[in-house]
């Protein structure tokens, strides 16, 4: 069965971005409307992926396959399973929000801004849908270009440094990955087909080397401690939309890479190196949690909180039980919503005050009550309060971790305290208390557009927190299959 839905999900936003670029930035209003139309269209074409998804089917669905570079047996091979389907939806959904969030704020080169996000959205859908290693790599690396431009053109004062750091850090990992992809191609007898790679036999030494190369690529992207330092810089300097996409989608690429490449292709190395991965994850969870506590810049605080939350994701993957892996995937989706919402909230305040310093705020609830209510909900979700999406994933991972080893679970559980501490403390300093200064007193509450964006996210966060079944149901069979696969040695 050949379906074109995945191709549509990739190419609708990319092709749609071209007329927007061609329009130029003079006709701002038209550009914004057209961008929104493209983003919504791109989201709508991904919906059938969810509704038409066969939850009992083991393997890839919506498969498209065509030769791309016959010279090297590279195929245009797309397909999704229960693990990747949600990310495509999440990505397309977030793109709509990003277009809305940049509606009035982006005054310079609006067309290029919108086009960059749309192109990036298409490229990232490509990453999640690729089942050919070269296709994956090509999307993986091409997505750096729009992000580099976004941070560099519309970013803060130190944007150039952040843009370079982001690009070069990520490129370092991807180049090593490229080398291992080429190696695997030769080992597999001339195939870049990921599904074939999943069956490939490899002895331990090459498995470990390839695992390390993949680790560098994906760990930078996740980011895991100690290669996380680019993220706070990139987040702080990026415009709101950039931070949202970075946190909600780009960080997931690394974690997704572990699930798609490291675990199934290199199960023995994954098991062998799991203690190291767990240790790195716990350091991210605990140590970065403490680092977040002392931040004075809101965006930096959320950036560190992202690293800490992503530590949970990698932890969930490397304890190799169903609830852990599913919890990690739920955590990824949830973090996509919550971190996007947190950055949007900071963006709302930044648009008005042009400051991200916690110290510049205080008593925002007095002047922006509606906003403060939303912000409160998202802060709660970020600290993992039950009935929000943040709780589900964390709880599942902790449960899985305790099954694996009590003390690992114990260390992971400290995040519930740390997360609450840094998020709620920040919220308290920003929102509560008396009005801190004249600037805060002059703040106006959110408008209809901002309200809609935050309300959409709030609905998603609550829905996922109260009734996560639609999310876990989709991934269940695929995770089960993955774990069965990982349990078989390839030596």
């Amino acid at each position: 069965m050949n379906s074109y839905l995945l191709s549509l999900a990739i190419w609708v936003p990319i092709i749609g971005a071209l007329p927007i670029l061609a329009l130029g930035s003079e006709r701002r209003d038209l550009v914004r409307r057209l961008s929104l139309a493209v983003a919504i269209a791109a989201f709508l074409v991904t919906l059938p992926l969810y509704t038409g998804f066969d939850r009992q089917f083991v393997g890839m669905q919506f498969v498209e396959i065509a030769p791309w570079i016959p010279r090297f047996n590279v195929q245009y091979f797309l397909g999704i399973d229960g693990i990747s389907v949600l990310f495509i939806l999440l990505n397309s959904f977030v793109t709509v929000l990003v277009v809305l969030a940049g509606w009035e704020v982006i005054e310079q080169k609006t067309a290029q801004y919108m086009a960059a996000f749309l192109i990036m959205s298409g490229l990232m859908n490509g990453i999640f849908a690729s089942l050919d290693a070269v296709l994956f790599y090509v999307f993986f690396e091409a997505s750096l270009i729009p992000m580099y431009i976004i941070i560099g053109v519309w970013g803060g004062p130190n944007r150039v440094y952040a843009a370079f750091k982001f690009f070069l850090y990520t490129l370092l990992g991807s180049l090593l990955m490229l080398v291992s992809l080429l190696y695997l191609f030769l080992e597999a007898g001339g195939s870049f087909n990921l599904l074939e790679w999943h069956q490939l036999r490899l002895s331990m030494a090459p498995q470990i080397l390839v695992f390390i190369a993949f680790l560098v690529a994906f760990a930078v992207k996740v980011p895991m401690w100690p290669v996380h330092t680019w993220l706070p810089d990139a987040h702080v300097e990026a415009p709101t939309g950039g931070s949202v996409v970075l946190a909600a989608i780009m960080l997931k690429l690394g974690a997704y890479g572990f699930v798609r490449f490291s675990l199934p292709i290199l199960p023995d190395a994954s098991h062998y190196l799991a203690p190291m991965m767990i240790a790195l994850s716990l350091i991210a969870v605990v140590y970065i949690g403490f680092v977040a506590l002392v931040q004075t810049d809101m965006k930096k605080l959320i950036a560190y909180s992202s690293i800490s939350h992503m530590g949970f994701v990698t932890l969930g993957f490397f304890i190799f039980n169903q609830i852990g892996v599913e919890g990690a995937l739920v955590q990824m989706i949830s973090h996509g919503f919550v971190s996007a919402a947190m950055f949007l909230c900071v963006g709302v305040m930044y648009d008005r005050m042009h400051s991200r310093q916690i110290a510049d705020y205080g008593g925002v609830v007095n002047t922006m009550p509606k906003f403060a209510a939303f912000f409160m909900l998202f802060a709660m979700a970020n600290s993992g309060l039950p009935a929000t999406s943040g709780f589900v994933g964390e709880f599942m991972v902790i449960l899985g971790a305790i099954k694996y080893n009590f003390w690992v679970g114990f260390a992971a559980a400290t995040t519930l305290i740390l997360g609450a501490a840094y998020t709620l403390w920040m919220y308290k300093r920003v929102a509560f208390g008396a009005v801190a200064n004249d600037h805060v007193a002059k703040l106006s509450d959110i408008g209809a557009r901002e309200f809609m964006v935050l309300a959409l996210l709030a609905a998603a966060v609550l829905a996922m927190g109260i009734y996560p079944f639609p999310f876990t149901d989709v991934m269940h069979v695929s995770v089960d299959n993955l774990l069965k696969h990982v349990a078989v040695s390839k030596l």
Partner: protein
Amino acid sequence: MLNTFVMPDFYPAASELFLAAMACVILVVDAFAGPARRWLTAILTMLTLVGCMVITYLTFDGSSALTFGNMFVDDPVADFLKLLVYIAVIVVLIYGRDYMAARNLDKGEYYLLVLFATLGMMVMISAYNFLTLYLGLEMMSLSLYAMVAIDRDSARATEAAMKYFVLGALASGLLLYGMSMIYGATGTLELGVVAQAIHEGTTNRTILVFGLVFMVAGIAFKLGVVPFHMWIPDVYHGAPTAVTLFISSAPKLAAFAMALRLLVSGLFGLAEQWQTMLMIMAVASIGLGNLAAIAQTNIKRMLAYSAISHMGFMLLALMSGVAGAQLDPMALINAYSSAMYYSVAYVLMSLGTFGMVLLLSRAGYEAENLEDFKGLNQRSPWFALMMAILMFSMAGIPFFVGFFAKFSVLLAAIAAGHVAVVIIAVMFSLVGAYYYLRVVKLMYFDKPVDGAPIQAGLDMRLLLSANGLAVALFGIFPDSLMMLCTATLVRSL
């Protein structure tokens, strides 16, 4: 004696003969037409190249033919590379026209030197004998020396030409000396017979390897790889930009052909030896080229160092043909076709990049500093996009042709077991990404300092856009070009 003379078959060399004849015609026409009717020279030059293209295309049929007593070969690789050379030269002439006219450098000599250099390249590409190759090489080089100095009042250009000439002559001398050694050992100058003699193993290996070292040095000089790279930055910088554009494009294809003919067709029996030499040069070039490029503020110098690193990458593939004792024909094809693909891709990118430098230059103003690219996105979003495509492509980021060029080279090198070398190479290309990104940064993140609108003819604008889009298009659909390189090579080796 008369009855032993065999009339050679001129057909395989038809395009060379046509070009040589036309060059003589243009020489006369230009002398009579005078400066007032210079356009006549320009048009005739163009027509000559187009004519060559037609002739070569007609003989591009997948068959090989030797002629002139086995001194000259016309095989698919030769035809393919020649076609690319014509295209590159036509592009160079169009990009450089306004620039040369504004500086009053578009004299008849310029066109003639371009034609003679082209003829030299064609002879190099089709050479099947040490002497033919040397003849073509000298014809190309001497024309290039003169072209660098064409702006005779410029001290910098004269100095560059002098350096180029002295070092180039030295390199030619080395090459010739190496050839004489091989001749001494094998008793022949014909590539095929040399290969046969080495294969039979009756020759003195010491003399062969001794000669090989000199020949590799000569090739390395023409390619411009470390440690024979010193002339590149000075010549690129000193020459008028239109001439730099020329030097950085078509001659690279000819130099690749020379390397292929000498090393693969002629000295294949010594592959083990020359592969090691190439490996050292490749790693050193990729390292030095990328590191030194960071320190440059002049874009021509920066691109010069980038050219060094790119040629290093090309060598990476060229040194990956033979691995282990068993000869694997697939590995051979993969390696040499990757090297060829890389050269072609590089020439495509190099044309575009120097074309951009020419686009920003105008009468009395040389846009050769990196600063001149500041804020290009505000001055002309379209050409900023083209330059961004070119820079990302040079850095090896997908979806552009540069990525797939690197991809196939790295694949060939890994297949030959050079994993460590590949890791060094990719780490240096990470370093290299920095200076390409810096150009993008200047164009997109900075405010313009030079507000002047871009003046360029419509033909140049269109061609430059086509060039940029080709870099993108051959990246999205890389297969056609790869297959073409592979297919021509398979039929020629």
